[in-house]
């Protein structure tokens, strides 16, 4: 008696048999046949050949059969547009049916048939249904407008459906309101400028009323819509908050998170002196914690959002550390997120517990998790000064386990601890040196070499250690080579007598035997510095390095504020603004938090840190290496190569980030040296050179410095090989696949002191291309 019988086939040919059955006189047989067709469809089999036969079954009183035929139609109408027209009459007739269920069904199905010709016939029935007496039909029709807009936006505007839809926001039935809001939101997503959801205090009031009465999904739509509203003053913001707060107790986690978004956003407008402000803060914690007892997938999304909330308002969850402790059966993606939040919440008060947990995690089986746990210990040390000693001893314990990847991670973080607390924990260097041989990852090797170079004067056999690395110099990765070069120069400056030979060896390895321009450049700089003015060399290479800041991975405040406006969305999961990843984002509107209106705090800038007191402590954000690179070269090619309007394709092509992450590898060769020397990135900043400026290098510095370098090499040109003449072969930056046939390839070259870019555009579309543009963006 089950439906699996519909999947059985006979030898004669399934389609043929079905055809016969569909044309049978018996109603029952027909219905069974349609069910078989649907069953084939569900598994992706192509049954479009049966189109006319199935459509013939459409005129029937049997609702189930009708629904089944509709299901079929929606799937295949697109491939058989001419045939689909046959169905129009039945649809139009059904839209007049006395049964509201059938009226709604007809208008709903018609909207799903994505055939231009049909949409013309759809307008009249749709107009009627939008004004139908039955709210069920109205709410279905509201969604249908969004469907129609997706197929033919112009038609919807011409027919005035948008105005009708706006009127529905004032409908008496909350479900209709919710659907109208949902439809308008979807439409306005593709027309960000159209300002369809023109919210004013009256409509807000209507939405808030509907909020209490509509379904959970409707509540999500309404809350998301409310979040886009800008209250005119703090009083209005408070009254909206008060009416939204009950949603925090909803069983549906999506409702809860949407409500959190509205509250987080409007809270920005409330004065901190207000009693209500404190109450609200208190009310936000429990629902967020509750989200963590839900299914793991929900937890993951919740944790990504909590990560943002904790950065924006750490006070909300500061007492809830324990709920973020990892459970042994959490999926790995939950574990990693929890770990992140644990570090953000770590403070002097709870550090002991956190460390005990982290130490435990470091003995688990999952390698990624263990690595992150070890790193977390290091980050705790840097964040909570009082715990640094304990963290270091924990790390030493872990190094004693001799588990290879644990040791390597530990060494990488200990290097950071040295940079935060110089001249404090150097006693552990001996232990680190014992593990020299087991290091096989570039990052760990580089870190170890940095340590040896930095503290060369305290390590008796520093020269031997570094010499041992030098043996396989050419097999090392660039990172290690650069670090080794710098470390040996440091060593030479500290112990010039014994290491002359060593430094000469490394300089010649770097400048003469290496193909890597970065390495050569750095080698030459050192060489010249050392040979012309050793005192200056000492000042440059052994300059005092700035302390690294507390947290290296905080989201930049303006971005954070923008992301807070996107709580609960994909953007919040990826921690990127939608403009960075939403495909075909046709001019995404940047959202920002409302400014605080409280008069007492008017002096505070809207983007300032959570509280005035904390503003001072807000750690500076060190840009990640990738970002920095962008800054240095002032090149971020993210051209919205607006889609060439070819043929009838109405699909807009989104901005293709040509160089995106690829810039790293693309430019890696030329910029590696600049990066580590100028960057002051926590990992490599100690590399010496250029009297390392503070961590936040202003974007402008990069370019002049670059050209300065060029000049320098013009001078050196006479001495060694002329590195300026090297031009990398062109590589493809934008494959034709991604850009409707437009291929862009190019390369960077250095010509007498300036960097230039050569581009070749190729049309691979086999058609004429016109109206395309390339935009070169400066990166901040």
């Amino acid at each position, binding site marked *: 008696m089950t439906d699996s019988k519909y999947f059985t086939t006979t030898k004669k040919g399934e389609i043929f048999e079905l055809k016969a059955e569909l044309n049978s006189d018996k109603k029952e047989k027909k219905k069974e046949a349609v069910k078989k067709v*649907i069953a084939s469809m569900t598994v992706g089999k192509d049954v479009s050949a049966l189109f006319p036969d199935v459509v013939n079954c459409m005129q029937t009183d049997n609702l189930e059969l009708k629904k089944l035929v509709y299901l079929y139609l929606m799937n295949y109408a697109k491939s058989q547009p001419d045939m689909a027209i046959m169905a129009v009459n039945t649809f139009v007739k059904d839209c007049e049916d006395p049964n509201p269920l059938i009226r709604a069904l007809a208008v709903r199905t018609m909207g799903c048939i994505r055939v231009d010709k049909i949409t013309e016939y759809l307008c009249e029935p749709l107009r009627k249904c939008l004004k139908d007496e039955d709210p069920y039909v109205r709410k*279905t029709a509201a*969604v249908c407008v969004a469907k129609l807009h997706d197929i033919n936006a112009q038609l919807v505007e011409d027919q005035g459906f948008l105005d009708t839809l706006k009127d529905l926001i004032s409908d008496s039935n909350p479900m209709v309101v919710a659907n109208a809001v949902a439809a308008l939101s979807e439409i306005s997503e593709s027309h960000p400028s159209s300002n369809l959801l023109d919210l004013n205090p009256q409509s807000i009031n209507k939405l808030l009323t509907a909020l209490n009465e509509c379904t959970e999904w409707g509540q999500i739509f309404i809350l998301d819509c409310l979040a886009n509203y800008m209250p005119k003053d703090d009083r209005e913001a408070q009254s909206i908050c008060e009416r939204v707060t009950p949603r925090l107790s909803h069983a549906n986690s999506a409702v809860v998170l949407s409500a959190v978004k509205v509250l987080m956003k409007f809270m920005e407008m409330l004065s901190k002196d207000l009693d209500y402000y404190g109450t609200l803060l208190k009310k936000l914690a429990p629902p967020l914690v509750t989200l963590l007892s839900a*299914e793991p997938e929900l937890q*993951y999304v919740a944790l990504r959002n909590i990560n943002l909330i904790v950065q924006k308002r750490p006070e909300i969850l500061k007492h809830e550390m324990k709920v973020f402790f990892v459970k042994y059966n959490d*999926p790995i993606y939950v574990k990693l997120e929890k770990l992140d939040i644990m570090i953000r919440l770590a403070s002097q008060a709870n550090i002991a517990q956190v460390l005990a947990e982290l130490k435990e995690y470091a003995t688990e089986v999952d390698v990624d998790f263990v690595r992150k746990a070890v790193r977390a210990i290091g980050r705790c040390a840097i964040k909570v000064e009082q715990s640094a000693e304990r963290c270091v001893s924990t790390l030493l314990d872990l190094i004693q386990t001799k588990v290879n990847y644990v040791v390597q991670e530990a060494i990488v973080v200990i290097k950071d601890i040295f940079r935060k607390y110089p001249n404090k924990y150097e006693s552990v260097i001996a232990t680190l040196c014992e593990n020299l041989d087991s290091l096989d990852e570039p990052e760990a090797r580089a870190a170890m070499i940095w340590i040896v170079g930095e503290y060369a004067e305290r390590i008796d056999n520093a020269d031997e250690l570094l010499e041992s690395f030098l043996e396989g110099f050419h097999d090392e990765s660039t990172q290690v080579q650069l670090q080794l070069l710098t470390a040996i120069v440091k060593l030479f400056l500290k112990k010039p007598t014994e290491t002359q030979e060593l430094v000469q060896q490394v300089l010649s390895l770097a400048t003469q035997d290496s193909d890597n321009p970065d390495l050569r450049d750095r080698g030459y700089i050192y060489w010249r510095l050392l040979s012309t003015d050793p005192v200056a060399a000492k000042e440059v290479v052994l300059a005092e390095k700035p302390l690294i800041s507390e947290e290296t991975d905080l989201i930049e405040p303006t971005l954070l504020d923008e992301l807070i406006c996107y709580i609960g969305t994909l953007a919040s999961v990826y921690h990127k603004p939608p403009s960075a990843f939403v495909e075909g984002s046709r001019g995404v509107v940047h959202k920002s938090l409302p400014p605080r209106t409280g008069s007492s705090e008017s002096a505070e800038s809207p983007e300032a840190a959570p509280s005035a007191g904390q503003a001072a402590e807000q750690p500076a954000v060190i840009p990640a290496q990738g970002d920095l690179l962008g800054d240095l070269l002032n090149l971020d090619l993210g051209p919205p190569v607006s889609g060439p309007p070819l043929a009838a394709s109405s699909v807009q092509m989104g901005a293709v980030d040509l160089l995106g992450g690829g810039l790293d590898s693309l430019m890696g060769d030329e910029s590696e040296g600049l990066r580590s020397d100028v960057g002051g990135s926590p990992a490599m900043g100690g590399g010496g050179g250029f009297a390392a400026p503070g961590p936040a290098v202003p974007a402008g510095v990069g370019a002049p410095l670059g050209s300065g370098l060029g000049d320098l090499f013009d001078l050196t040109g006479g001495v060694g090989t002329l590195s300026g003449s090297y031009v990398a072969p062109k590589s493809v930056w934008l494959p034709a696949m991604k850009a409707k046939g437009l291929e862009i390839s190019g390369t960077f070259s250095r010509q007498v002191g300036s960097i230039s870019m050569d581009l070749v555009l190729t049309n691979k579309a086999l058609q004429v291309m016109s109206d395309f543009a390339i935009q070169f963006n400066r990166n901040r």
Partner: protein
Amino acid sequence: MIHSLFLINCSGDIFLEKHWKSVVSQSVCDYFFEAQEKAIDVENVPPVISTPHHYLISIYRDKIFFVSVIQTEVPPLFVIEFLHRVADTFQDYFGECSETAIKDNVVIVYELLEEMLDNGFPLATESNILKELIKPPTILRSVVNSITGSSNVGDTLPTGQLSNIPWRRAGVKYTNNEAYFDVIEEIDAIIDKSGSTVFAEIQGVIDSCIKLSGMPDLSLSFMNPRLLDDVSFHPCIRFKRWESERVLSFIPPDGNFRLISYRVSSQNLVAIPVYVKHMISFKENSSSGRFDVTIGPKQNMGKTVEGVVMTVHMPKAVLNMNLTATQGSYTFDPVTKVLTWDVGKITPQKLPNLKGIVNLQSGAPKPEENPSLNIQFKIQQLAISGLKVNRLDMYGEKYKPFKGVKYITKAGKFQVITGREY
């Protein structure tokens, strides 16, 4: 909004697809398979995956992946909640949410999906509305249908669809009017080596089974409502009343549903009903170790702790275990290294004990970590938080319903850590 849905089984076959907008090719699932391969373990597949043109949001339930395809910015929680609702509906309709059940009822599944979502917007997800639109399959009905030719699709507009109480249909009639409430509490706890509580909280729910005629309006009050400070409510509950009077006032859905779920986390309120004495040690340079665990009851208000089961993930180096249990039976799986001890009831007079020798792989280094013990137990007729229902009143209907409340406490994620001290 939600564009398409693919159902995929554990061996990676796409056995159902449904598109609410245009058709998205199955090949989009390749990105999912890629992630699945990377994750190794099925539970570790990340729930949000981005592909060049779409986003895949998935849940894993009952050995089935529900993979939804979205194209625009949609709240992921909304999608995940919806997917869980789909799985719940299948469970509700077919008694189980399995590949076989779905394949056996593929047409109903398709009709359901069509009814639940329109153009990616949720349409009807309440089970009582769905059941009026599409009747669940029963053996009797399919027999009747095949004789009379009638269908399992309702042809009138469901009554709950638009009312302010979409969760209840009109015209419900029962001969026996009953209302049952189950107060179920689960203790999540981490106990450290010395027996002190590192972390403990109670996750509680009140599940209800309400079979009342007409439109009853119920009020449920508690002896100690102050316990409930972090609560999630079923939409039927009037929030205002709760805020002002701490009374749950609602017109209930028909049948089984979860009335509230709550969390009690303040440490002093979470009583730990069992204690565990343990001695697990591995000797240096020897291929054996000792294992000795005793479980005993703590403060539990005179109720018996029963259904006690202990599972331990032993270190990899453990070959097998030679133990004797004074009560119950134990098994050790040498492949997964999981030790399970089914204890049963704990009587305070004679405490259950499990002890013996652990054999290690010869030559392997002494295991670093000490295993954590996961304990399950049950206590009938007790809500460990102390929550107590005071009374249930019914308004709006004349008959006298039969009322009942049941309490039960269970272990949730209850771990005793043997290697760590705070």
